[in-house]
């Protein structure tokens, strides 16, 4: 059983990051030992090399800690969140460099999170370059490791690997071992794939073995919901705020969310609405550890099983207008000069979809037109994968041109990394509509309409 006791009720155990726990794990009990196939045991015994043996040892120890009964073969394609070549990644990069030197490779070509800087569109100044060359000394080594282990070229780097322009969207029910909290969260929920929330390194390590321990969110029991979340806002909810509220409340448990079906025509998740789930889900994963959520009438598991996904004794959390306002009020203003004006706006964490980049491009340029201005008061950074940027230029050339004139810089780098980069964090009073960027930086969170007004006027409306 995963997260449920023999009586089918939640055990109350938490802290697995997977929405489930080994129900009978107890202090002092004999250590759990999963069953391995002959082939897996041979790898563990070193018959396929020392490196692979160590990888298998890690995966088995990891699975045993969670009561996994066996390893399962992985399908689709992996996604890795190893993207930062800073000093703290040295030992992990060295680990995978040894694997690459030994001729090991991922079981399929895989996607990777965006790089932490962009020397062409954002960091094209001496001050930033100095910080980057000092701070990201291992970026080249990391990129080279990925190239040898099976990642495609840098144009496809994105945290939103499931976008059409990238194409890493395995079929529902496929076992994978992804990392990147927002990709895991979206994949499990909107795509219906089966992955636990793997830490950086465990993703690639599992990809090299082509195996992962079966537990938690990869199992039927682990995917059942311990919370019913009723969204009852009068108007369309603030997706980032709702996600933050859910993550804070349920922490790692699986929520079953109602009240959102009307925002998804025909109950379908499409290229034009997936950003709503992306914004909400990434916030649940950043403020808590939610690896899977169900949206009634929308996400695959919920469409198939409905409220049967709720466990006996589930808890209820209601998000109405008052609760949404309360959540937003908990967002602190961390600027040293609290009443000063903003100096930069970040849009696109996780990376913007094509729909989003066009939507925000239009909102900003139309607001500027209305104000009789051509250029925004502050620089705007819009984050997306390169193929989305190319599509914008190809399909919306006039808009793209106006966006450039307005001061929009479209970049394929990671927003959170830039927001936290030495120097940038100190000198920037940032604003964003991403609840995830807010969690990981000193940026202030603003809903879309207020964000656009602040971008145009250079002041946050009272």
């Amino acid at each position, binding site marked *: 059983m995963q997260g449920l006791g023999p009586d089918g009720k939640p055990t109350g155990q*938490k802290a697995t990051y*997977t929405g489930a726990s080994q129900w009978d794990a107890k202090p002092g009990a004999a250590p759990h030992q999963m069953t391995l196939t002959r082939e897996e045991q041979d790898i563990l015994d070193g018959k396929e090399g020392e490196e692979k043996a160590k990888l298998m040892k890690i995966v088995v120890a990891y699975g045993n800690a969670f009561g996994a009964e066996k390893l399962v073969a992985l399908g689709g394609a992996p996604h890795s969140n190893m993207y930062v070549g800073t000093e*703290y990644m040295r030992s992990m990069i060295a680990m995978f460099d040894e694997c690459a030197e030994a001729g090991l490779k991922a079981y399929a070509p895989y996607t990777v999170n965006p790089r932490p800087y962009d020397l062409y569109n954002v960091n094209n100044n001496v001050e930033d370059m100095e910080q980057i060359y000092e701070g990201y000394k291992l970026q080249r080594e990391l990129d080279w490791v990925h190239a040898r282990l099976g990642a495609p070229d840098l144009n496809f780097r994105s945290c939103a690997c499931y976008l059409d322009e990238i194409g890493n969207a395995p079929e529902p029910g496929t076992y994978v071992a992804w990392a990147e909290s927002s990709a895991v969260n979206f994949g499990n929920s909107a795509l219906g794939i089966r992955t636990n*929330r793997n830490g*950086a*390194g465990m993703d690639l390590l599992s990809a090299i073995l082509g195996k992962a321990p079966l537990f938690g969110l990869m199992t039927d029991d682990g995917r059942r919901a311990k919370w019913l979340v009723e969204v009852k806002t009068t108007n369309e909810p603030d997706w980032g705020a709702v996600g933050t509220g859910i993550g804070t409340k349920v922490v790692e448990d699986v929520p079953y969310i109602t009240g959102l079906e009307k925002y998804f025509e025909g109950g379908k998740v499409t290229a034009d609405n997936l950003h709503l789930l992306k914004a909400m889900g990434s916030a649940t994963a950043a403020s808590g550890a939610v690896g899977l959520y169900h949206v009634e009438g929308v996400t695959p598991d919920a469409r198939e099983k409905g409220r049967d996904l709720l466990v006996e004794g589930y808890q209820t959390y209601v998000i109405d207008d008052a609760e949404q306002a309360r959540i937003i009020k908990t967002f602190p203003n961390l600027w040293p000069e609290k009443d000063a004006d903003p100096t930069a706006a970040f849009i696109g964490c996780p990376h913007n979809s094509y729909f989003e980049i066009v939507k925000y491009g239009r909102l900003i340029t139309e607001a500027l037109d209305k104000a009789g201005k051509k250029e925004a008061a502050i620089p705007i950074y819009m984050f997306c994968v390169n193929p989305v940027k190319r599509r914008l230029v190809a399909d919306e050339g006039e808009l793209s041109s106006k966006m450039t004139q307005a001061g929009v810089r479209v970049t394929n780098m990671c927003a959170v*990394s830039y927001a936290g980069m030495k120097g940038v964090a100190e000198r920037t009073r940032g604003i964003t509509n991403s609840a995830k960027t807010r969690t990981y930086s000193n940026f202030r969170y603003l809903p879309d309409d207020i964000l656009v007004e602040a971008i145009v006027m250079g002041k946050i409306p009272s």
Partner: protein
Amino acid sequence: MAKTFKGRTLLPGELKGEALVSKQAFNTSASYLENMFAGRTDSAPCTDSANKELYGKDMAGKILCTTQTVGSTMGAGCIMGMNDLKVGFTAMLFSAHIDSIAAGGLFMDDIWNGRRIFTIDLLGDEFLEAVKTGDPISIHEDGTVEVG
């Protein structure tokens, strides 16, 4: 007088050290931003503004006592990396079941690099209620933890 608690040993060892307590779940990535992205290597001030108990405190070399870790999946690399930078925890003590992010970082560092952060989980809510930041802690191979 010392209080004794018993947990499940994941990475055993004998250690004495000083407790750093976060009664709320510990957000690993949000707590190490200066070390991860700003080049700091001499100490590890907690950068998670949502963690009122730890914000601004130096975490290097302490024994973390918390419920679980939460936040970005970068947390595993972060645990391994902080150990590499010598500003990591010497032990991680969880009142509940270990989470998959922390487990990944801890097992990778232990098995691949031979660097061990002593780890015990399932210590119970009473453990977290009893322990205070700055308390002396003794950790034993069998999963026994003495506080005070």
